[in-house]
């Protein structure tokens, strides 16, 4: 096989040389034979004649030689391509319409596929990625990868792994001091063996070399990403040895990772990597903290010859042993399904956080663009059918002179493939800006999802295969139909004749199917758009208008913990003094920020089974005024609820109802936390329920609020509640007030203390929007795709009807000449259009009802078979088809009988 391809390749590359050599070789044969004849006594002239005659027809021999080398097929294909290009150039409007249809279909598919590739499919560019596993827990659908450092140390020396490492991403980012100010970079802390265990590729220098994490005086070294190297150092080779100043320390750059690698977190561009020992330095006790499973992830590389099941079993033993130790008593056992068993999660494609979030939406979008491509295919098939009808005569002539049907089908297919490939190429060009636009939709929120969606082999292969499949899909039926010609009548009258009444042709069936597919796409989009609307207009229990939020970080080196209360008091005072400000509050969490702080709760007298948990927040008294959360019973917090006063708490309606039933919660006590940290609180008031963690919840969260002034204080940043807080400001109605505030909060904070860092300034509306990114991406894209589907189907319907009218102009002319009213002709054509579209739409509505389950997981506040959406989608299509049908109908009614009869 290889040899055949090579020999064919040699012929193709050197086609002239092949022909020359063949001619020389045959000539040599004839000459040599003639020479022998002469030697045997035949006169030269006679000898040459006989040599030629006995050799036979040299053209036929050559043709057979070409065939023996597989050249003939290629010659024919080349002919077909040349012929196809010529005929495409002749019918420019047709070619443009077909190529554009395919380009839109393929473009949309390529764009979504690029995202799928980047989010779901691509393996990490590291050594043998399939050997890597996250060492997590809770086997099942949602394996959790959270861990803590002591756990890593238990796993570290297990012999089923050739290496185990640990890392933590730093959501806060690193603030790097540069000559021209400060910039914030995504960063991570990794164990000393991280680069070695993962086999991270480097373009310059090296990774960390097993520096111990527990080191009182760690090496101040850093690894940077290729993109940061390019951005900040212009890819200068002498970057190694330069320093970056982060949190007052100068880190020496020891390595630059290869371009494709950032971290094991897809979507996160980690630009700076620091040793775990630095984190331990900043957060004393971090490495010994058993107090919860945090965003530390443990990764292990399977030792050669060790199976996944074997490793999982070994891991489970160590995990259970660890979890049974007294230090793990903190575990919130609200549900018995957590922390019960260890689990391995393949790490070849990195962390699955992003995949988990976007796998289903991407599948839905991929299905939608698949349908759009089918609609585009139907369009092109229809165009080809119409053109095939116009080419009946040409086909008849070619068959008449002896061209085989297979040869003609091949010719037609070559044309479709050319159209498809041209469309695919254009689609590819359209796809890249589209992908970037889609990515920017994802990045509307505070956390950017940075993905590499630049063209790559996988995407190119996808587009090529999709284009070829498309070409065959829309080309085969027209090719077969076009070549099924009854020669005589076609030659006689050129193929057009009297067609009576409406009937189902391949063309109208295609249009009806297009419309059916279109209904499915539009219905899906309708459901997703209405879901977004439902979520945006949802009463979440708080007032989101006119609230500005920002985060304050007071953990800078040289910001003593005891100065924090005064700093916050000053800041709140300054902000409250601003014109238009109604209230200013501080809190640990805000509604819909996707954080959760579940704590164990014990309520004396509560009869429920098992250990219970509640969601907690720490707030200042003004929090409830800022968010408009109403007090239902008792009193709110006051400045008198200070450190030395009795511990008081507010609870939400749902919390009170769950734990106290119908009895009055005011004055009741409960205990929060476990072990030595357990605290007793007394309820002084009950407030309205809010949706706390996210909008999409079934039951309201059981909340406990405690006063900030009574919150735990500690020596280090982690245990001090005041180290990081959110500030909330409610302003009067004017938008300008909010805008002005947003622009100046940083200066206000700096005016109080220079080293206080303000970040993520946003309005509550923006925070809500950020929480709805997935819904908005789905709604926006599905709307765009349904618009595309609608345009394609509308154009398809218009094309078929216009073509029918053109073909029937003679019949229409006769009718008009016989005295038919023009309105009745118009109505007749409209009726035909409606028959086709109503059938298609009816089938589509049925299909939509069947397929709606596919998006049910994304819906909120409406059923997958929401009647309003279905009726709406059908109505939109009906109007579109009426418009698309009216234009050809008007043209039909305007036919001039004399002209129509004469031209035929």
């Amino acid at each position: 096989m290889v040899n055949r391809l090579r020999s064919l390749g040699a012929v193709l590359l050197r086609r002239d040389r092949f022909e020359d050599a063949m001619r020389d070789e045959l000539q040599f044969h004839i000459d040599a034979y003639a020479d022998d004849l002469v030697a045997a006594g035949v006169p030269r002239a006679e000898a040459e004649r006989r040599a030629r005659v006995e050799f036979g027809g040299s053209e036929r021999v050559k043709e057979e030689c070409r065939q023996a080398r597989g050249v003939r097929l290629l010659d024919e294909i080349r002919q077909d391509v040349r012929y196809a290009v010529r005929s495409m150039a002749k019918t420019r409007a047709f070619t443009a319409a077909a190529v554009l249809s395919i380009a839109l279909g393929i473009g949309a598919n390529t764009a979504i596929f690029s995202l799928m590739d980047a989010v779901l499919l691509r393996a990490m560019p590291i050594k043998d990625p399939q050997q890597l596993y996250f060492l997590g827990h809770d086997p099942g659908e949602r394996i959790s990868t959270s861990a803590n450092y002591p756990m890593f140390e238990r796993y570290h020396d297990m012999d089923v792994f050739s290496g185990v490492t640990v890392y933590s991403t730093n959501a806060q980012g690193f603030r790097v001091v540069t000559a021209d100010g400060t910039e914030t970079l995504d960063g991570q802390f990794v164990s000393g063996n991280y680069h070695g265990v993962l086999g991270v590729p480097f373009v310059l220098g090296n990774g960390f070399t097993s520096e111990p994490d527990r080191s009182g005086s760690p090496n101040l070294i850093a690894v940077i990403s290729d993109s940061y190297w390019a951005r900040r150092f212009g890819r200068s080779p002498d970057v190694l040895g330069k320093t970056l100043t982060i949190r007052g320390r100068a880190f020496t750059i020891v390595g630059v990772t290869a371009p494709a690698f950032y971290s094991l977190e897809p979507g996160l561009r980690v630009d700076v990597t620091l040793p775990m020992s630095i984190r331990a330095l900043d957060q004393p006790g971090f490495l010994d903290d058993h107090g919860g499973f945090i965003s530390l992830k443990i990764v292990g590389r399977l030792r050669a010859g060790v199976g996944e099941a074997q490793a999982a079993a070994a891991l489970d033993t160590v995990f259970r042993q660890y979890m049974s130790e007294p230090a793990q008593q903190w575990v919130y056992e609200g549900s018995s399904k957590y922390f019960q068993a260890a689990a391995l999660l393949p790490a070849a494609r990195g962390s699955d956080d992003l995949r988990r979030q976007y796998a289903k939406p991407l599948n839905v979008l991929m299905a939608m663009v698949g349908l759009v491509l089918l609609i585009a295919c139907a369009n092109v098939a229809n165009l080809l059918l119409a053109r095939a009808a116009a080419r009946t005569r040409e086909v008849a002539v070619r068959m008449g002179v002896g061209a085989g049907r297979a040869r003609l089908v091949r010719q037609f297919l070559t044309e479709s493939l050319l159209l498809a490939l041209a469309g695919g190429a254009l689609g590819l060009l359209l796809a890249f800006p589209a992908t970037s636009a889609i990515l920017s939709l994802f990045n509307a929120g505070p956390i950017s999802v940075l993905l590499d969606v630049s063209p790559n082999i996988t995407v190119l292969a996808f587009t090529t295969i999709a284009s070829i499949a498309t070409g065959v899909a829309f080309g085969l039926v027209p090719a077969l139909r076009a070549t099924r010609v009854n020669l005589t009548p076609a030659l006689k009258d050129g193929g057009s004749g009297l067609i009576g009444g409406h009937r189902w042709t391949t063309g109208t069936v295609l249009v009806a199917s297009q419309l059916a597919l279109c209904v499915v796409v539009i219905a899906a989009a309708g459901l997703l758009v209405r879901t977004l609307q439902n979520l945006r207009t949802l009463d979440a229990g708080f007032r989101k208008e006119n609230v500005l939020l920002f985060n304050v970080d007071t953990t800078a080196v040289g910001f003593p913990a005891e100065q924090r209360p005064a700093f916050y008091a000053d800041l709140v005072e300054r902000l409250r003094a601003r014109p238009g400000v109604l209230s200013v509050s501080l809190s640990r969490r805000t509604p819909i920020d996707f954080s959760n702080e579940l704590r164990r709760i014990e309520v004396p007298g509560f009869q429920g089974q098992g250990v219970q948990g509640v969601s907690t927040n720490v707030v200042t008294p003004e929090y409830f005024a800022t968010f408009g959360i109403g007090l239902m019973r008792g009193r709110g917090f006051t400045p008198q609820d200070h450190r030395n006063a009795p511990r008081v708490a507010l609870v939400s309606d749902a919390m009170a109802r769950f734990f106290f039933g119908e009895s009055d919660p005011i004055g009741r006590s409960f205990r929060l936390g476990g072990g030595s940290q357990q605290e007793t609180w007394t309820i002084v008031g009950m407030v309205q329920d809010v949706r706390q963690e996210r909008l999409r919840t079934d039951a309201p969260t059981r909340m406990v609020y405690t006063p900030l002034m009574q919150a735990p204080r500690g020596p280090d940043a982690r245990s001090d509640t005041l180290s990081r807080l959110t500030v909330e400001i409610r302003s009067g109605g004017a938008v300008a007030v909010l805008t002005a505030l947003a622009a100046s909060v940083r200066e206000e904070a700096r005016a109080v203390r220079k080293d206080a860092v303000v970040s993520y300034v946003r309005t509550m509306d923006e925070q809500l929007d950020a929480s709805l990114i997935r819904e908005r991406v789905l709604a926006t894209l599905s709307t765009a795709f349904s618009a595309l589907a609608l345009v394609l189907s509308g154009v398809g319907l218009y094309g078929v009807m216009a073509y029918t009218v053109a073909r029937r102009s003679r019949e229409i002319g006769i009718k008009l000449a016989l005295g038919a009213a023009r309105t009745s002709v118009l109505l007749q054509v409209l009726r035909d259009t409606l028959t086709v579209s109503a059938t298609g739409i009816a089938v589509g509505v049925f299909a939509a009802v069947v397929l709606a389950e596919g998006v049910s997981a994304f819906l909120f506040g409406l059923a997958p078979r929401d009647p309003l959406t279905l009726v709406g989608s059908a109505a939109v299509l009906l109007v579109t088809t009426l418009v698309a049908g009216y234009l050809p109908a008007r043209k039909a009614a305007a036919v001039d009988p004399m002209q129509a009869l004469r031209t035929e």
Partner: protein
Amino acid sequence: MAKTADLLPGTLDLLILKAVSLKPLHGYGVLLRIQQISGNALEIPQGSLYPALYRLEHQGLITAEWGESDNKRKAKYYTVTAAGRRRLREETDGWKRLATAMAAALDTTPDEV
């Protein structure tokens, strides 16, 4: 001219392989060599020789190289490849078995039945 036999289908390829396995030959030489080794008993239609050569070259059983003929002219010389030699051996065995079987069958006399 001596009495000649028509070629059985599939035998031309085998004969060509045999001819070029003895010594590299140009196309005309192959023709002469086959006539010579078959004692002029086999007549090769000249026109079908070249398609067969091209087919064998395409299959990688022989390779071709330009060289100089005895009378100092440029000619294309064919050589058998390792794969060609293998094929020749297999097919030769096959042919011999077939020929023996055929001869035995056709020589059978009534007494032997």
